[in-house]
């Protein structure tokens, strides 16, 4: 079982969902959500697109989406819900979403003054302004994940950061059901016919044809998870070593300037797919990205937006001095705002580089 599956919040959530004692609570929660949706899809005799699936699921969960695309939407929501439906909390949405230094992506509101069976008993307000627009698809499914796991029935508001285990679990649920296998699987298989590896071009084709509202990043994660061959999804950005971060958070001061820690390009998110876990292809989370890597080049070179190359993970050295396994890999990477996202795929032995 993964360390994540052993988090108390995850074990407690599984127990709340009647899945206590499952061998792997993460898998059990994902399966449970998927089964609920499968039942609804079966009731309507199948589903042909992700848009229809979202409408079906949102309807079953009594959810309605409101999107913030400009300042005017705050006024509209206030007018419709606070003034029109006597739900004053909606007048505070602007304040909620404009908390300086703490960007908010979505909020799920349980309406009052509404029948228990009303189709819009829950309103998910999604911020689609600026940089947040690319997360629109995923944030909508993330809010659906909250309803699927019955969080929204709790009395206490749930304020969590995206680093919180439960929020990460909601991301996993969102990815699992948002890229619904009966829709995603055939689209993936169709584009992968005759290809030996996944490329960003293929991911983009799958996204455009089957999940046009999804971001490239979320489609890439979904595609890499479905790959039968070992692959690691990686995000790299400037970050401190874990112990330096702890010292900084504790308010430590450095009298000698040269000893003050500096952030370095690190693997801040690392998701190995099942095949990678099985075959031992791994990158240590938070480890430094070597300057020789394609990922480092793309991060540092303003003239490079993306690129693909082969390299050897044996060049990747942990701060403790250990190196990763001697493994040839394809690395395809591209810039994405403050970071580089990359797909690292094992090259089978004997492949001509």
């Amino acid at each position, binding site marked *: 079982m993964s360390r994540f599956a*052993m988090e*108390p*919040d995850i*074990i*407690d959530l599984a127990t709340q969902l009647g899945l206590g004692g499952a061998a792997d609570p993460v898998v059990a929660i994902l399966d449970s959500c998927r089964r609920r949706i499968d039942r609804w899809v079966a009731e309507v005799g199948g589903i042909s697109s992700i848009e229809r699936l979202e409408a079906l699921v949102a309807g079953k969960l009594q959810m309605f989406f409101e999107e913030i695309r400009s300042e005017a939407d705050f006024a509209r929501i206030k007018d419709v819900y*606070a*003034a029109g439906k*006597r*739900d*004053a*909390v909606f*007048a*505070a949405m*602007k*304040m*909620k979403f404009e*908390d300086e*230094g*703490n*960007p*908010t*992506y*979505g*909020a*799920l*509101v*349980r*309406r*009052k003054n509404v029948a228990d069976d009303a189709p819009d008993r*829950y309103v998910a307000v999604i911020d689609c302004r600026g940089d947040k627009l690319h997360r629109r698809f995923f*944030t909508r499914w*993330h*809010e659906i994940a*909250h309803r699927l796991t019955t*969080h*929204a*029935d*709790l*009395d*206490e*508001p*749930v*304020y*969590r*950061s*995206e*680093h*919180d285990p439960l*929020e990460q679990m909601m991301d996993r649920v969102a990815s699992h059901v948002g890229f619904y296998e009966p829709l995603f699987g055939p689209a993936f298989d169709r584009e992968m016919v005759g290809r030996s590896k996944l490329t960003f071009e293929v991911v983009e084709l799958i996204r455009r044809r089957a999940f046009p509202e999804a971001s490239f990043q979320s489609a890439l994660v979904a595609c890499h998870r479905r790959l039968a061959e070992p692959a690691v999804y990686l995000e790299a950005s400037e970050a401190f070593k874990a112990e330096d971060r702890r010292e900084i958070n504790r308010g430590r001061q450095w009298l000698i300037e040269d000893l003050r820690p500096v952030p370095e390009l690190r693997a801040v998110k690392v998701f190995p797919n099942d095949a990678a876990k099985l075959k031992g292809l791994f990158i240590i989370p938070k480890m430094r990205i070597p300057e020789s890597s394609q990922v480092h080049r793309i991060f540092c070179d303003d003239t490079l937006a993306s690129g693909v190359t082969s390299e050897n993970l044996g060049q990747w050295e942990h701060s403790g001095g250990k190196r990763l396994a001697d493994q040839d890999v394809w690395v395809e990477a591209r810039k994405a705002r403050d970071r580089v996202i990359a797909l690292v795929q094992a090259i089978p032995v004997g492949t001509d580089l």
Partner: protein
Amino acid sequence: MKPTKQTVGERIKKRRNELGWTQDVLAEKAGISKSFLSDLENGKRSVGAETLLDIGRVLSLSLDYLMTAKEPEAESAEVQIPSSLASFAGRAGLSFRQALTLLEMQQQIVAHRSATKKDGLEKVDWQKFYEAVKEFLE
């Protein structure tokens, strides 16, 4: 609040077992040695507040529960007004009913995702919240 007769160590052990964790797992997560944890669970060692905080954090248990053996009542008719709201309501001259209405509105937001952690209702900026909704308060 309902006190129990367990010791600190027994409460840690009980929660650890609920989570299906070995002593190795908890010791690693809490940054303590396995032998210290074993002694603690068996009542052979005492523990400082800082270490207990670390243990409580990884077990998702409050320091209050670990130290005082008090569990929240399962059902309570009492309304808990966060101290930050009570303080704001006092300054702003709001009635108990108005403070309660503000609290109920906040509780309608059942999930709220942002980039950094907020510690629940105590950290709500009640002043700003009140300013935003006051025209609709009865």
